[in-house]
């Protein structure tokens, strides 16, 4: 669970940096839809992990 949350959070934070790095490297832009896809995926993981933690705390 902790690894999942960490991975999602890092993916969220890294998205703009990756886009900039890729742009500098080969003069291509990361498409907005790709950034949105990474952001959405990471946000879903983070939200789902948070909900599972909440669910576990209610069950305890």
């Amino acid at each position: 669970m902790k690894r999942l949350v960490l991975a999602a959070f890092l993916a969220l934070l890294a998205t703009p940096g990756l886009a900039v790095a890729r742009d500098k490297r080969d003069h291509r832009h990361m498409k907005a839809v790709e950034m949105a896809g990474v952001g959405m995926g990471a946000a879903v993981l983070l939200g789902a992990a948070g909900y599972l933690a909440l669910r576990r705390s209610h069950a305890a």
Partner: protein
Amino acid sequence: MVSVIATPQATSSLHASLRLGNRVVPGTLFLALLLTLFAIAADQFLAPALYSSSPLWAMAACLLLVWRRGYPLGSAFDPVAGSCSMCLSTPRIAMFCGAHGAFVLAALATQGALQPVFGTFTTGGWIVAALKLSILAPTFLLLPSAEWLIFWHAYKAEALAAVVVLFTFFPSRVINSIWPWYGQALGKFVFFLSHTVVPSLAYRSSLTPTLAGPDLDVTILLACSGIDGVNLFDYLFAFVVFLDWNRLRKERSLLAYFAGVALIVLSNALRITSFVVLGNHGFAKFVERFHLTAGWIFFTIVFLTYISLSYRHLLSGAVAEPPTSNRA
């Protein structure tokens, strides 16, 4: 794993129940929904003009929730107490396949004529969009109406959830159609909230309104409408509903869904307001660089706050889970 189990009342063929993993579901209903899902996917593959994700999502939601529910205790589908003996007949399956074939042929034949209105927000465009949903209609051919009525009484909550998914999930078409009005309303609301903190702010009206400040101009694009936030909420709320379906109070969950969507829309306005305010108080570079990422984090925090505040209310007084043999 799928296997047919014999019940006291139904000892031949696929009468009452299918065992799917560790759950028992009414075989006839489950097969009817599964056939519909496959038929819709095949139709859309063969005739791309019929493509709409809504019927696929709705059918998938109904299937998953029926599977989560299992057989309702004491209903006609209860393997112990029930008296259900339904099955899909070959003539009805043939009629169902014929109707889907007719849909595909009609779509292919009229594709050229309808092409100009696809995806538009004209009356014709809306009629075509509505016709895409009618692809679900042949499902009613699979069983007599009296048997659909029995299913409706047993699985009303699952059916209503599928209807909600059909009309509200991933509402890009609705957002696109109301954007000329909604964009202005959003821009003026953000201006109203920001104006007191950034007095020199100016509002430039256009299809994509701009809030011009001393350090940073913020243009509100369609992508800033909150549609991504609503989509994220849809995914996460669907996950909650799927996992807790047997413990949720269904009426409260329905209200919580619409309240959550409204909260996301309001939060989106606050998110843009924060960009305008921070961007014009020394954080212009930061806002420019991180506004997309910050949006995802922001919407995730809004969802988690909302669900943690409402979760107890959604569960309290919920109906009992199905019997042990039917639980995940």
